[in-house]
């Protein structure tokens, strides 16, 4: 079973602080994204259950994030090969542009029976890229899988739907996103870390994928992704408890919080 796993280089959230409503990324190490590790683990289990095939980690460059180090980590965890799309034009790109680059790389490095993703990235967490890639590649997509089984031609997935669990089957090839409870990602052993340096890493530029800077240019700008700040009224009521309660009720009614 040949599986592509899309991987993003993400900050280690445990070491990140928030100051003035913005993340402090100074000196924070970047690693394989948390949910991407679940996708990678799922891929390795499926590959090993099938008894043959390869797992290819795919990523795109993003500013000065050290994607080659991330790919080494993915190879140490157990991927057989790594594919990198590296182009300065991708630095400013958005989910649509990143999906084009990933789909191009997967198409060129493939064919694959399965394309796996974490349900979202550790930092942006828009969850858009998997569906965009699936659409570009013309694949059926199953989102939020909490378990995966393959019989070769058919893939069975359980999806977390909040209140219920949905079981779906799809013919391969397909695209699947996984949630964190699907597995416990393995920690690479020293031997596997040492072997990772010798595994193949393929690098593409956008031109190799019949793309250019214009194709991946962002089509929209994020002005803010912060939750709206709610101002509090800080009203204090004085007096006897009964009078305070009366005043509070009146205030809540006046605000429309309590009805008549």
């Amino acid at each position, binding site marked *: 079973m040949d599986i592509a796993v899309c991987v993003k280089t993400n900050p*280690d959230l445990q070491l990140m602080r928030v100051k003035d409503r913005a993340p402090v990324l*100074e*000196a924070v190490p970047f690693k394989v994204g948390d949910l991407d590790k679940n996708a990678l683990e799922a891929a390795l289990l499926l590959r090993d259950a099938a008894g043959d095939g390869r797992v290819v980690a795919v990523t795109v460059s993003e500013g000065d994030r*050290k994607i080659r180090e991330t790919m080494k980590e993915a190879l140490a965890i157990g991927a057989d090969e790594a594919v990198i799309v590296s182009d300065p034009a991708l630095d400013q790109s958005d989910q649509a542009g990143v999906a084009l680059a990933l789909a191009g790389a997967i198409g060129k490095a493939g064919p694959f029976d399965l394309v796996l993703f974490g349900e979202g990235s550790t930092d942006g967490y828009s969850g858009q890229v998997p569906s965009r890639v699936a659409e570009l590649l013309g694949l059926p997509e199953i989102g939020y899988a909490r378990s995966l089984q393959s019989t070769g031609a058919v893939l069975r997935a359980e999806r977390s739907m909040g209140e219920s669990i949905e079981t779906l089957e799809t013919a391969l090839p397909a695209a699947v996103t996984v949630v964190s409870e699907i597995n416990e990602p393995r920690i690479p052993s*020293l031997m596997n870390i040492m072997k990772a340096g010798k595994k193949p890493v393929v690098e593409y530029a956008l031109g190799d994928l019949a793309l250019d800077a214009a194709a991946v240019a962002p089509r929209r700008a994020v002005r803010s992704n912060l939750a709206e700040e709610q101002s509090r009224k800080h009203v204090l009521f004085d007096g006897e408890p009964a009078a305070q309660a009366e005043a509070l009720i009146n205030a809540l009614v006046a605000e429309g919080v309590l009805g008549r």
Partner: protein
Amino acid sequence: MEKVECIVVGGGLAGLVAAYGLAREGVEVMVLERGNYAGAKNVTGGRLYMRPLRRIYPELWDDMPFERPVARELITMLGDGAATTVELASERLSGPSPQSYTIQRAKLDQWLADKATAAGAMVVTDMKADELLRDGERVIGVRAGGDEVGAEVTIIAEGVLGLLSGGAGLREQPRAADHAVGFKEIIELPPGVIEDRWRLNEGEGAAQLFMGDVTRGMTGGGFLYTNRASIALGVVVSMEQMRTRSDELESWELLDAFKEAAQIKPLVRGGELAEYSAHAVFEGGIDKLPRSYGAGYLLAGEAAGFALNALVTVRGMDLAIASGWAAARAALAARAAGDSSAAALAVYERFLRETFVMRAMEAGRGVPRAIENRRLFSEYPGAVARLLEGFFAVDDESSATLVRTSLRGARREFLKIDTLKDLWSLRKV
């Protein structure tokens, strides 16, 4: 068993510089770091002395991620409810080639790890070396995370406690008497506030050391270094004196009290606590150094005892870097000779002597005994303040001239046999 040419245990300054020095010569070298990034487990007061280091791999330092070059040095004596500060601002401290920089290890160590990686070293994080593999006397590699990896030379740069080398009997187990313990807070302040508070030009930094009440008379002191947008405030105190106190004082309480002291409070006002850390520091001095080499291994950095207590400051990072450099050279010499026996690696000691490491350790020989003298930390800071108070005093009773008052004060405070003895004991510090 999988093999590499060299294993470096510890991704701190000594280990990373050694790895860089080996990798740039084409040696297959692997660094094992137990933290989840290089620098994760390391604590510094905050200042790196750069001048002696510029000769070591000169190409390396151009883009070092420093916080501020230190342009102002202050020493503050706290005692008897008073603070006396000696202050030096000099063009020769900063200028085109500053003597020292304030730094933060999380940034510096990751930057150095990147340099080593770019040179071809393999830096493995989240990987604790559990044990040294031996063949008789010889160190032949390490066991880490269940795997065994062999190496021609293992450079042990595991830091102050030396658990691996101590466990293998390559050095003695650490004793409290040879160590101090340091506590530090990083307190965020806007760069402009830092520059105003310490009267600095834009981008320049200050180093302020404190002795006296900070440690309640115990050996040690306080420190304050200005980073770009934060200050590092901490206390270092003798582990043994702390351990043998009869009261209930906990060492971290010293830092809390220090921060609340009337003379310190205005310096940290408005700051936001961002980080807290603590670490042991070796201060046994040159007489307590372990043998730094043997068949198949070298000790570098604080694992080799290269740290220096100079009364109120502790110096170690420049020694770590220089010893890492010397370790790389020794391993390269062994490789060229095809011999990594103890006799071949003894060349390490010569390289250490060629650097400032052994000169600095030698110069600090008298310090451990001198600083056991508690008068330095309990009596003198207050005495200095009283003398100056006499100088500045204006009241009904002062009829004598300033000079006479001062001389009388100086005689009263300092012309004692103990003081003269102390001065004599400090002549070499």
